[in-house]
Structure formats: structure tokens, C-alpha cells
């Protein structure tokens, strides 16, 4: 029996690795550039790799580099990091409904690996997400992020400009690739995505709030509005049936 459980976990792990490959590809140019910028900001290769190992959150790591360059204090850099990454709270809360029951220790470990990208891959998977699957997705993503951050610092150059730019589309293409199959199946998903996109565009381009808050607010607003609309629709339908 335990053999069976182990082989199921390992096949889930393999599925996770396969699903994580797009993230691995997408992180490659971003991590490489991060390593390069970290070098020009005066971080040593150890500090660069340590940051990718411990923080594992692209946007905030980039921001910290520009703040270091401005000579911003440590406390403000940490506070900014917190604000930029607060959106993961919402993602973890949503994902918590989808993962299978497991030991606290496993949850403590894999929760470290929740990024915009790992969240998107796991959340759009059909059915529940096994722990092995989460570990698979996260291990590819994390390795790519850490290794290529170090490599970027080491070689001290980014990719040729045209390749760098065209690879910049990778993560967005992945998000679209994850979203479209669900859009084809459900009108609700179409409305959710469009509303999320519109609110976030208004918030970020209108400079109403910092980027971290814009995504959280846009997501929550859209999710609540659509859910409320659905509840009202259901209620009306049942009222009609009673007539």
C-alpha cells in the first residue's frame, strides 16, 4: 500500500515538473537580467544568489535593486517588499481551498514557493492539487530562478537585445495559455478575466496605488462583483420558478 502511495506521489511530482517547465523558461530571461542588474548595483554573486534563494519574488527583488541604488534605508526596502508581495496572501488563501489535506510541515515548505506564476499553474489545474504536484511545479521554478540569477551575475551580460525582448513575453504568454482553456469552457471566467484586467489597468495606469495593491484590489473587486451577480441571478431564477 505504501508503495502505491509513494508511486502516486512521484507521478504527481513528475506532472508538476512538466507543468512547471513553462515557468522555468519564463524565469530564465528575468533571472538572468536580475543577476546582471544586481552586479551593476554592487551586490556580490553570493548576495545575489542568497536573495534569490531566500526571497524568491521577482518584482520585489528588482525594486530592491533600484532602492539600493537610490541609497534607500533597509527598513524602507523591507517595507516596500512587504507591500509588493502582500498579494500572495490572497493567492495562498485561494489555493488553500484547492490543495489536498497534508501535514503542516509540507504546507510550511511549499507555501514558500507561491509566486504569481506557480499560483497560476496550480490554480488552473483541474481537480485538487496534490502535494507532490506543488513540489514539482515549485522545484522547476525555484531552480530556474536561483541558477539563472547566479549565471546572470557570473557572465555579466544579458541575452542579445532581440532575444531578450521576445523572451520577455514568455510569462504573459504562459498566463494566457493557462487562462484561455477555462475561458472557452465558462463565460464566468471570461467576465472575471476582463474585469480583473480593466480594474488593474485603471489602478496602475491612473497611478492610484502601488502595483502590489492594484492587483489585489482589482482581483478582489472582480471576484466579489461576479460572485454577487451570480447569486442575484440564481435568486431571480428561483423566484421565477416559484411563480
Amino acid at each position, binding site marked *: 500500500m505504501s508503495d502505491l502511495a509513494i508511486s502516486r506521489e512521484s507521478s504527481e511530482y513528475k506532472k508538476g515538473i512538466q*507543468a512547471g*517547465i*513553462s515557468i522555468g*523558461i519564463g524565469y530564465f530571461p528575468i533571472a538572468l537580467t536580475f543577476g546582471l542588474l544586481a552586479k551593476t548595483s554592487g551586490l556580490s554573486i*553570493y*548576495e545575489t544568489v*542568497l*536573495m534569490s534563494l*531566500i*526571497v524568491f519574488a521577482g518584482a*520585489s527583488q528588482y525594486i530592491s535593486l533600484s532602492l539600493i541604488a537610490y541609497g534607500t534605508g*533597509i527598513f524602507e*526596502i*523591507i*517595507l516596500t*517588499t512587504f507591500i509588493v*508581495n502582500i498579494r*500572495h496572501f*490572497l493567492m*495562498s*488563501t485561494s489555493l*488553500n*481551498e484547492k490543495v489536498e489535506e497534508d501535514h503542516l510541515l509540507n*504546507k*510550511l515548505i511549499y507555501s*514558500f514557493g507561491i509566486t*504569481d506564476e506557480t499560483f497560476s499553474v496550480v*490554480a*488552473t489545474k483541474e481537480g485538487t492539487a496534490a502535494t507532490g504536484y506543488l513540489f514539482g511545479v515549485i522545484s522547476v521554478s525555484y531552480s530556474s530562478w536561483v541558477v539563472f540569477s547566479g549565471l546572470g551575475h557570473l557572465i555579466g551580460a544579458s541575452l542579445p537585445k*532581440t*532575444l531578450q*525582448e*521576445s523572451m*520577455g*513575453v514568455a510569462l*504573459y*504568454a*504562459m*498566463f*494566457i495559455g493557462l*487562462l*484561455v482553456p477555462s475561458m472557452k469552457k465558462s463565460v*464566468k*471566467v471570461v467576465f*472575471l*478575466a476582463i*474585469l*480583473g*484586467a480593466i480594474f*488593474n*489597468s485603471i489602478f496602475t495606469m491612473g497611478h492610484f496605488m502601488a502595483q502590489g495593491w*492594484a*492587483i489585489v484590489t*482589482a*482581483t478582489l473587486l*472582480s*471576484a466579489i462583483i*461576479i*460572485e454577487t451577480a451570480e*447569486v442575484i441571478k440564481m435568486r431571480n431564477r428561483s423566484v421565477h420558478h416559484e411563480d
Partner: protein
Amino acid sequence: MKTEIVWMILGMGLVTYIPRMIPFVLFKGKELPPFIQGVLKNVPYATLGALIFPAILFIQKEDIWYGVLGAAAAFIVAFLGANVIVVVLGSIAVLSLYSYLM
């Protein structure tokens, strides 16, 4: 390594880890009111919309059409039912070709 930088990295790591970890430890899941559960199920799709727009339009700062083309390529390949990796590689290929021709 400079001690100051190491402390900064540790602090950044801590404030990033806490919001990621708290929901898994604090909430049991599947026990929240149905409305909240519904909202949480909606979150991934609204997030994806917000993660894609408007950022994809600015992947190349001088040329907004670059992002539009990348988004269109990804959407078409995905709509035809291709695997996510094919969507990623396909849009990279389309944009490489576009840069090459321009």
C-alpha cells in the same frame, strides 16, 4: 558578504514568506461560508486578467504593438488548444520574427 545586505535579504525573505504561509496554516479550507468560497474560486481568473493587463502592453517600452502582437499570438495559439509550452514558445517565435523583420 556585507552584513547590512544580509540583514536586508533576511528581512525581505521574512515579510515575503509570511503572507504566503499564513493562509495555509490559519485557514482550514472548505469550511468558509459558500459566498467566500465562491469568491476564492474566482480569484485565479481575475488575477490572471490583472497579471496580463496592462503589463503585457509594455514588454517593449518604445513599441506598444510589440506587446499587442505577443498577446494576440499567445491568445490564438492557446485558443487552437495548444499546450502551454507551445503557447510560450510560439509567441516568443512570433516576436523574434517581428523584431527580425522590423
